[in-house]
């Protein structure tokens, strides 16, 4: 099947504003206030105003609807709006929807954001006692925490690919090193491999330091047309392209029921992404892989074709491995359903990361690989 080249599209989108409130264990305000402040901060970063905004997209799991946020901020009219589902899979697809609205002239200035009091607000799984749909065959056995669902996949990958504990520990230690250079990161204490290996098991084979943080956070992002971006006093991060995918028999987190155990939705996203962008892994200078859990990093390099299946841990040790999760990511900076990874991808294009890759032309950001998901490429130059 041949696809129309995206370069034939008449308008390109660019990220021109990003802003994060300080990450914390208790942000001390509602998600709607934090989200509103994050959006205002992102607009200020772009040099734009609320009156410029004409579209909003959000995560389904964002508790403040785009209509409520538009009312709070006083937006005159949303010419386009929508939500993307599936938790940590929603980040790149939400930004992709914003870019699509711009590319197709539905809107000129699009706001998206993620505000979540995931620390002070408590663990969502604690109160989900009525198991509906797929959950009725999982939750009664305490497959309720994200780590529970992930552990069963991880056992499969460890046995299939021969991963060692140190293979996963390398991810945790590396991202902690990145976080130590990032003043915004919540976890900045040094972490050694011994620290990782001696952290307690949560759901075997996954340990505490395989897991992301639990964070109160609010991050806003503003996109506009490439043409308008050039008139603003910012370095645009051009949206070169994106892809989405679910794979077969997808139940999110616990997709054990299809024929091929352990094959993630990201394997379906990757060909869409590379086709859509006209790029390949060799064109990517820095990556932010969704990292609720350490296994998602070696798998990410495999899924997106940086190395062959099963070679992820070896690739992580090789000089060919690009810088990844440069803010510290979900493991050591903050866990915001991957929205911090998206703004870090923008920072890499701007050249303002605290673990900056050299000469970044294209930055890849992915969303959760074990849920319906997507990925996006931000670039220094327009199409």
């Amino acid at each position, binding site marked *: 099947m041949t696809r129309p080249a995206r370069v034939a599209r008449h308008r390109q989108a660019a990220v021109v504003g990003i802003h994060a409130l300080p990450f914390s264990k208790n942000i001390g305000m509602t998600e709607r206030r934090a989200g509103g402040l994050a959006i205002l901060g992102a607009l200020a970063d772009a040099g734009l105003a609320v009156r410029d905004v004409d579209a909003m997209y959000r995560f389904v799991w964002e508790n403040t609807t785009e209509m409520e946020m538009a009312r709070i901020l006083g937006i005159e009219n949303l010419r386009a709006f929508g939500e993307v589902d599936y938790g940590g899979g929603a980040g790149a697809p939400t930004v992709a929807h914003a870019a699509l609205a711009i590319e197709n002239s539905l809107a000129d200035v699009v706001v998206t954001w993620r505000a979540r009091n995931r620390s002070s607000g408590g663990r969502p*799984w*604690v109160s*989900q*006692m*009525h*198991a*509906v*749909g*797929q*959950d*009725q*065959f*999982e*939750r*009664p*056995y*305490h*497959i*309720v925490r994200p780590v*529970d669902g992930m*552990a*069963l*996949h991880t*056992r*499969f990958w460890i*046995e299939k690919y021969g991963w060692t504990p140190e293979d996963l520990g390398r991810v945790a230690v590396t991202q902690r090193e990145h976080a130590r250079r990032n003043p915004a990161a919540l976890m900045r204490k040094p972490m050694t491999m011994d620290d990782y290996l001696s952290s*307690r*098991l*949560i*759901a*075997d*084979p*996954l340990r505490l330091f395989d897991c992301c943080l639990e964070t109160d956070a609010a991050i806003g992002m503003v996109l506009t047309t490439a043409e308008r971006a050039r008139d603003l006093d910012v370095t645009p991060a051009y949206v070169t392209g994106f892809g989405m995918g679910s794979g077969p*028999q997808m*139940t999110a987190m*616990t997709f*054990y*029921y299809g*024929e091929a*155990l352990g094959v993630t939705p990201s394997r379906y996203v990757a060909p869409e992404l590379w086709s859509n962008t006209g790029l390949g892994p060799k064109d990517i200078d820095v990556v932010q892989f969704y990292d609720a859990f350490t296994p998602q990093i070696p798998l990410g390099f495999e899924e997106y074709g940086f190395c062959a299946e099963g070679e992820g841990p070896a690739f992580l040790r090789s000089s060919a491995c690009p810088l990844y999760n440069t803010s510290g990511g979900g493991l050591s900076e903050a866990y915001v359903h991957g929205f911090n990874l998206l703004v870090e991808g923008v920072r890499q294009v701007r050249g303002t990361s605290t673990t900056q890759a050299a000469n970044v032309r294209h930055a890849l950001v992915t969303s959760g690989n074990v849920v319906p998901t997507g990925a996006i490429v931000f670039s220094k130059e327009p199409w």
Partner: protein
Amino acid sequence: MKADPSLGFPIPVVDQDTQPFWDGCERGELRIQRCGACAAWLWQPRPICSSCQTPDPVWTRVTGDGVVASWTVLRPPTLPAFASMVPFVVLLVTLDEGVRLLGYLVDGAGQVCQTDGSAEGVRTGRRVRLRFHEQAGVPLPCWTLA
């Protein structure tokens, strides 16, 4: 099924598509859907065959025999109702029919084993047999090592 939500365990919300499964569990039977047209085994419950799109796959009793496809040992922090059970093993079992289900590792009498699985020698590929374990009034399919 007289499920008791007051005990703090997650309770299945049964609907028309899943009622025959839970009815089977009440009788000590594991029922899986099989398409009457293309004979595909289907899990989880659904109103239409995902292989050939024929409506109303047929609920069919199976033995529950299978092998361990993956497993985990659950440890704190858990929901409060599970706190006294940890550590315990949850198995992902591939039935001989090819579909995969979750369930506790239980002993021959259907009681949940308080274990990290090492004493029992749990590993992928081990054959398992079906047992039912009642939790908060819900008869849950579970597995014991064969």
